[in-house]
């Protein structure tokens, strides 16, 4: 955006009425652009977690970071969401869950061709290898830190806004 000095310089070169008209039109365009960006920029997360307390904490963090979140209670529910055509900007998946584990779900999601950022999460450090082999992008140990989550979401939001 032009600086105040640049606007001042422009104001001195064109008639006042014309200048005011231009400025108000520019303001409308900028506001609309910002509004559109704000509407489109909220990242959509899928939380795949069977432990209620962990789910509640992660949802609270995501809410604080203005992230929309959907919950799947196990790997199978997560895969079913993708099969239904749902899309997400980021997936946070626990490792050990009933019906289908996190790494199993990640492998199936990748096999579908989904390019979504996938974060494997576990209190078990041994889970990292399983997640990365399955196709996860990142592994985070539990409990997750808000700052780590924030920087991850910022990265996702920037990529989303750049491709918008």
């Amino acid at each position, binding site marked *: 955006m032009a600086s105040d000095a640049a606007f001042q310089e422009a104001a001195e070169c064109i008639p006042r009425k014309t200048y005011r008209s231009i400025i108000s039109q520019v303001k409308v365009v900028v506001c609309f652009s910002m509004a559109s960006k704000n509407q489109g920029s909220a990242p959509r997360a899928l939380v795949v977690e069977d*432990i*209620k*307390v*962990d789910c*509640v*904490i992660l949802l*609270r*963090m995501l*809410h*604080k970071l203005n992230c929309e979140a959907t919950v799947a209670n196990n790997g199978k529910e997560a895969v079913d969401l993708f099969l239904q055509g749902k899309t997400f900007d980021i997936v946070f998946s626990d490792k*050990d869950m009933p019906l289908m584990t996190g790494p199993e779900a990640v492998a199936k999601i990748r096999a579908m061709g989904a390019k979504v950022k996938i974060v494997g999460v*576990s*209190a*078990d450090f041994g889970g990292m290898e399983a997640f990365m082999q399955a196709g996860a992008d990142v592994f985070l140990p*539990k*409990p997750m*830190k*808000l700052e780590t989550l924030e920087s991850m979401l910022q990265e996702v939001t920037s990529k989303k806004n750049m491709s918008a």
Partner: protein
Amino acid sequence: MAAAALREQLNTLLSSMFASGMVDEQFQQLQMLQDDGGTPGFVAEVVTLFCDDADRIISELAALLEQPAVDFDKVDAYVHQLKGSSASVGAQKVKFTCLQFRQLCQDKNRDGCIMALAVVRNEFYDLRNKFQTMLQLEQQIQAQQ
């Protein structure tokens, strides 16, 4: 009792829980998530969920360890779950006792596991009592406002 006195009691309780290592910075993070977001019941919800879950897991562990042939994989899975949720709420002492418990599971040491369960149970009951006092004080403070 006046709100200020109740608040002082609550602060003293929380300070002692941190000082004794009963809770760690993860519990502070939960408190921040509540305070920053204007969601007054968040910590209460999390603490209640954790206590209900831990109670259930401890009962399951006791039943498993009473079996003539102990399924150590199942025991380990439950202890892992308890370790995870205790880490998530900042229940540091419970988490550490779970770490020791897991080692005994991996060694398939039944007597050791039974003793470890007793330690975990005691630590959890201590923590639960403190959490209950904390929630009662918070309710009393809210009632005064």
